């Protein structure tokens, strides 16, 4: 990418006046999620959410999705925190906020498809983390959920160019990032990174957004980038991609990301990938249901 192109992207992203419909609690929540130390944060989260009844109500409903492990909706945010743990409630809140963050008319790709992919990737990241005994599975969830936010930026500031890339990807059945690169000269990784920096996301999450398609460029947080990269590929191979057939095959174990993850987590060797794949299939129904619940208000592409 040329210097001037990089400047154009940053210039245009700077002028997105905070995502138009973004809930007020979103950015403070992101800050909380990026900070460490759990003490005294429960009250802070509860206080933040109390400003936004819609988000609070939605969060309680989402907590009862089979994907989050509760059978009944908790009665209050505090109750949800007690049963699910603070980190998980925070990621649920983040999910709900994102659902409202984007103006419905601006979508170039089908929002339901995009959210299923993002949420699917988040779930797979978390499930992988559980198998590998990664300390912070919710961080992995967050990274998975946000890894493709560059597509939202593309829709907002490069709608025509991105529509061409989408058309090409669909027509030639090639990966969307390849089509972006050949049509626009850059990808959602660069635009996502620009937004992530503007939002002040944690460095490791920025790293994921910037390099999940080119792990060799990643300098920091490489195991997390590897985890998201592999989860992303798996989702795209199991019906949680971008809504079209990608004419490709994926050898996860031969992927450059695999040894990076393996070096950090020896447990990876023992993971039964086929069963893991079948288990992901089981979650697809629940992911569809959740997307309809959280993101359902966004109408299909206009």
């Amino acid at each position, binding site marked *: 990418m040329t210097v001037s192109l990089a400047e154009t992207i940053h210039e245009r992203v700077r002028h997105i006046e905070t995502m138009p419909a973004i809930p007020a609690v979103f950015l403070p929540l992101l800050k909380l999620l990026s900070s460490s130390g759990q003490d005294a944060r429960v009250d802070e989260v509860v206080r933040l959410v109390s400003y936004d009844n819609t988000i609070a109500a939605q969060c309680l409903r989402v907590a009862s999705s089979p994907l989050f492990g509760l059978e009944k909706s908790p009665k209050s945010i505090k109750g949800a925190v007690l049963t699910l743990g603070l980190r998980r409630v925070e990621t649920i809140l983040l999910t709900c906020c994102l659902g409202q963050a984007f103006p419905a008319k601006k979508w170039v790709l089908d929002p339901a498809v995009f959210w299923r992919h993002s949420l699917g990737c988040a779930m797979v990241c978390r499930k992988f983390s559980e198998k590998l005994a990664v300390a912070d599975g919710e961080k992995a969830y967050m990274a998975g959920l946000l890894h493709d936010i560059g597509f939202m930026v593309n829709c907002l500031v490069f709608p025509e160019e991105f529509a061409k890339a989408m058309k090409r990807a669909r027509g030639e059945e090639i990966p969307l990032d390849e089509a972006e690169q050949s049509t626009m000269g850059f990808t959602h990784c660069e635009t996502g990174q620009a937004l992530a920096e503007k939002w002040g996301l944690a460095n490791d999450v920025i790293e994921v957004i910037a390099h999940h398609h080119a792990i060799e460029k990643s300098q920091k947080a490489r195991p997390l980038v590897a985890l998201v990269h592999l989860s992303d590929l798996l989702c795209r191979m199991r019906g949680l991609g971008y809504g079209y057939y990608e004419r490709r095959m994926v050898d996860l174990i031969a992927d450059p990301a695999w040894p990076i993850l393996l070096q950090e987590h020896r447990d990876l060797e023992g993971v039964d990938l086929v069963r893991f*794949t079948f288990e992901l299939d089981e979650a697809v129904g629940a992911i569809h249901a959740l997307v309809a619940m959280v993101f359902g208000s966004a109408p299909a592409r206009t």
Partner: protein
Amino acid sequence: MTIITQPAAVPVTPNKGAEPVDPVYRQIRDLVYKVSGIYKAEEKLYLLADGCTRRMKQLGARTPRDYWDQLTAQPSRDGELRQLLNEITIGETCLFRSQPQLDALRKVILPEIVGEKNKQITKRLRIWSAGCSTGEESYTLAMNMLEERDRLLQGWTLEILATDLNDRSIETAKAGIYGDYALRNTTDYFKRKYFSILDERKLQVSAEVKKLITFSRLNLQDDSRMLFMKGIDLVFCCNVLIYFDGVSKAKVINHFFSNLNFGGYFFLGTSESLMRLNDQFHLIHFPGTIAYWKPSLKSGKL
């Protein structure tokens, strides 16, 4: 404060309106997977439960728990597991059983193999349907190859070897006569193009399709005959190995590995896993399906 973390979320798709599945069925599901490699996903658990119920009636077992005891503790457990496997795979035989497999074959694998082999003098594609039963899979493969005859496979010699242990199945297969149930996934396009009407309720596969296939009797455990199967590009062996014990299964899989050309692929049933019985094959994900790959010489991954 103490943060209570929830155990790993188990995705449970509500089984449309039916009563919740007895947890014993999940135990049975895991046992079936461990022994046979067949994985009944959560939303298909009712199929497993139905199969168990039919077996329970036969055996006079009153509760799923009683049946679990028969499956695990009784001296007859191996036989009973076999009966259960029969029950849960019985309805699966039909033409065009797995569209994702056929898509992977036509959109991804064939272009690759053709590209590779076009440099060779003999352009021959050999597919082996191992455990072809009554022929549904073999004819499906043959019709799909014929569809490519004027495109990718122009000037190629096509061969489908279809083998089974059971003489009666082979006779039925050779006749190529199918009713509505076996044809439930077959589109009108294929019905018109490759079948003739036998009577009101039955269609017969045309001579053009039959010509591609050689049906013969073969015991996959007959080592000397297995050694003679050579130069195979693709092996399909769906829901056959599930009946073999671990040692025999590993032996058959090793045979398949030698039977295959470098760069060839091995497909199992859609919910079937090779488990960890062979570490030479690479697990490959295609959109919606998985296969096992014998690395090509030039890939340097052997």
